[in-house]
């Protein structure tokens, strides 16, 4: 066992390795600790904060991606009385990752493949369906989806529901009638591209990514015209600057990101043409800076030794002009990624007190295990703290703005590498966190898994046999055997406020409200409400299938507050149940099956909307 592992065992709950060595700009130490008395609001401000109309029009709730609701009818004192108001069967039994939206007293729900959209009339008892939209995606799309056939949600804008389908179409559906207004083919399944992310709409643009970095795609973000679906621009994540939309406005903070055509030069030969770097996660928007922020997925499909270099612009965070797509800065979170640490997680935009003034930052609980606080104007990393046990890196170099690789964990052909932490899904994957300005805490649903790269297995793709190293994931040994955690992270004090241990990975999104209640679901199917200040369990309800969806809350036509969530286990973590994978095949779902072998004993497939309210 290496010294690194011992270090992490020792740090245990303290989640050590706080950005050391912090030889660089010592902004680290300047984060001012604010007295955070139990009932006072935190000193953190949500930018562009607006009155809460009681609706939920996009998965992340606001452009800052806080998933925070100002509704407070349901609070820590009364949440224990929460009960089911109505349910709705989705008719699809694969992993349900989407967020139920509520607009104009109508709830909009999108399912995993085949991507049905239901509009439910909240003004009528039992919320019957007003219409159902069936986009009929190509069945072959299931064969290119890497990690279950999920959909991460639809968005409402301009009277339309904007939907991404697994086979790569973006579709605008009239929110009143359920008729399609326009359809645009954005990605191509014949090239291994799929589409699972939720689009974001800013002004008259719809931003759409692409999934499939495992298949040799060329990642990009596409902006469509909200009115007619026409492609306005494409920003690629590999290749020459002109394709990446890098020009005179590009001012990355770190020298390693500066230079001409790095999207070509940081790859051998023309490997950049199939270099991956998709967008399967989240996009945030700052109206005052007019910048969008999003992350790029892993490089591919080379084994890492065959692609020396940083492999730009994969596995990092872009800031771009919302109108033109021009790149403004880039931060590389996992340069020359070895472990599938896609940089696709959510980016929570906050204004936080540093050195006596509010600083515009974005907070990113990153797949690689570090919680980044980044100046969202400049791309400077202000702090990067481990929020779980990390062995793949030995620390964080703030001066260079990147984690310090651990050569002992470098995978290679025929080489057995044990205890790589976090495992390939990272310390946290797509499942979005929530932030409450009342507590100053970021509520992070995540997993605590490590992996061994050890199995040598024959495989066969398109008539081509090969033997490869395969990953086997398991509970992080540093954490006493539990595989997931719901963590409240104190942003200002840069430490965990509290955490709730969960047996299985916490693969659902989080929701937090002004009633000081945080909600999340477990893969066993428990939907939980906890005290946002203390983490105390206040209420729970056992749903019909494991929960990997994003809970939302809204004010109904009757003036009451409701909480909605989809149950339906699946996703990468739940593929063993949703995809019927073989529990004996430890490398199935890229090694995830080994970590959740017991899941089939704990839940079964499903697809159900649950909506809760007080009596």
């Amino acid at each position, binding site marked *: 066992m290496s010294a690194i592992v011992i270090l992490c065992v020792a740090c245990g709950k303290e989640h050590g390795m706080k950005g050391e060595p912090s030889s660089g700009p010592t902004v680290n130490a300047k984060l001012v600790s604010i007295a955070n008395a139990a009932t006072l609001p935190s000193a953190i401000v949500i930018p562009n904060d607006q009155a809460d109309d009681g609706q939920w029009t996009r998965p992340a709730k606001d452009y800052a991606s806080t998933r925070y609701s100002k509704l407070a009818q349901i609070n820590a004192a009364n949440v224990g009385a929460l009960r089911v108001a109505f349910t709705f069967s989705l008719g699809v039994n694969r992993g349900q990752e989407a967020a139920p939206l509520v607009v104009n007293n109508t709830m909009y729900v999108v399912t995993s493949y085949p991507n049905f959209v239901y509009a439910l009339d909240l003004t009528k008892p039992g919320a019957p369906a007003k219409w159902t939209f069936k986009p009929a995606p190509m069945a072959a799309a299931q064969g290119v989806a890497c990690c279950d056939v999920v959909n991460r949600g639809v968005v409402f804008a301009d009277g339309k529901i904007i939907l991404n389908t697994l086979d790569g179409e973006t579709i605008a559906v009239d929110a009143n009638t359920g008729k399609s207004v326009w359809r645009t083919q954005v990605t191509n399944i014949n*090239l*291994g591209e799929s589409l699972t992310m939720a689009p974001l709409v800013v002004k008259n643009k719809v931003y759409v990514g692409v999934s499939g970095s495992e298949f040799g795609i060329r990642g990009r973000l596409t902006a469509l015209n909200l009115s007619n679906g026409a492609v306005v621009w494409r920003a690629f994540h590999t290749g020459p600057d002109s394709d990446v939309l890098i020009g005179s406005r590009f001012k990355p903070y770190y020298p390693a990101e500066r230079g001409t055509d790095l999207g070509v030069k940081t790859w*051998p030969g023309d490997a950049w043409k199939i270099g991956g770097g998709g967008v399967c996660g989240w996009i945030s928007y700052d109206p005052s800076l007019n910048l969008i922020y999003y992350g790029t997925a892993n490089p591919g499909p080379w084994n890492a030794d065959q692609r020396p270099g940083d492999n730009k612009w994969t596995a990092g965070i872009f800031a771009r002009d919302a109108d033109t797509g021009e790149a403004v800065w880039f931060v590389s979170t996992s340069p020359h990624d*070895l472990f599938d640490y896609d940089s696709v997680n959510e980016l929570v935009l906050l204004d936080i007190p540093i050195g006596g003034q509010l600083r515009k930052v974005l907070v990113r609980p990153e797949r690689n295990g570090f919680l980044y606080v980044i100046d969202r104007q400049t791309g400077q990393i202000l702090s990067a703290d481990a929020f779980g046990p990390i062995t793949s890196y030995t620390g964080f170099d703030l001066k260079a703005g990147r984690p310090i690789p651990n050569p002992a964990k470098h995978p290679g052909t025929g080489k057995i590498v044990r205890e790589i932490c976090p495992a390939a899904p990272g310390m946290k994957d797509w499942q979005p966190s929530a932030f409450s300005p009342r507590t100053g805490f970021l509520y992070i649903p995540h997993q605590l898994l490590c992996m061994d790269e050890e199995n040598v297995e*024959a495989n*066969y793709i398109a*008539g081509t*046999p090969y033997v490869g190293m395969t990953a086997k994931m398991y509970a992080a040994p540093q954490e006493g055997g539990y595989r997931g955690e719901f963590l409240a992270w104190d942003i200002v004090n840069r430490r965990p406020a509290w955490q709730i241990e969960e047996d299985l990975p916490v693969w659902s999104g989080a929701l937090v409200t002004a009633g000081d209640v945080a909600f999340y679901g477990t893969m066993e199917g428990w939907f939980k409400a906890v005290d946002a200040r203390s983490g105390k369990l206040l209420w729970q309800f056992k749903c019909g299938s494991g929960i990997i969806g994003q809970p939302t809350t809204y004010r109904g036509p009757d003036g009451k507050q409701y909480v909605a969530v989809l149950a339906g286990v699946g996703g990468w973590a739940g593929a063993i149940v949703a995809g019927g994978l073989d529990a004996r095949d430890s490398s199935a779902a890229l090694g995830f099956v080994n970590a959740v072998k017991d899941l089939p004993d704990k839940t079964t497939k499903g697809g159900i909307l649950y909506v809760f309210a007080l009596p």
Partner: protein
Amino acid sequence: MYSHFRSIALAAMTLWLAQSDVVTPISGQTSSVLTPADAPLRVCADPNNLPFSNDRGQGFENRIAELVARDLHKKLEYTWWAQRRGFVRNTLKAGSCDVIVGVPTGLGMVLPTVPYYRSTYVFVTRQDRRINVRSFDDPILRRLRIGVQLIGDDGTNSPPAHALSNRGIISNVKGYTVYGDYAEESPPSRIIDAVARGEVDVAIAWGPMAGYWAKRSPVALKLAGVQPQIDLPFLPFVFDIGMGVRRGDTTFRASLQSVLTRRRADIQRILSEYGVPQIEPYAPAENSTS
């Protein structure tokens, strides 16, 4: 696991090893079906991957499937699915078909039959270029433009891609995804076109695919099996190919194996018609079934 490692190694290195040592059927599996005599032979296959199979029945696996169906007096039916990640899960394991005609016998997801051929990765060059390359250790590989195929899995790739990077041969390597563009005919074959067109000097590709497309190339191409056959510590370029059935379907496997034995000569004729490069197995003579 060491034991797993060893079992795969044995499967790759010895031909007629009893497969029951490698994959043990688990009791309690429900898939052990006794196929009724009038039930069709249900084959899982890729509709667009010559020379192996296509939905027009033009591949050698189509031909072998027809042969087996005839021998067993069964009607032949196909379930078509692109042979990508999820192929086994969505076809064989979903129960919509019962046999995959070609799988490496070390594939853990299925119960394999004994192999019916052994092939190798090959160097593919143009005849007129007179390039003689046989080994990954040939210094000429540092000067040539080399095409290799890439698989998608993180950390895993086609064996030649690993062999080259292990030797530091990187900047002169061009990658072709094995998936290719599925809207085109037989997408993995683009790498062979690339040699013919002079886009690369040498391609390193799986023998059956290379052999078939080389025969149809407008310019004469040359194939040579790669050396070594297994790169240390364990990177094989030679694979035994058999049929794959569901784990637990031992009776069905036995009937397929008897066809493979009975029709060995016919199968060999089909393979040679399609230009599948075969190499002699290392096996004690008394174990040979020929």
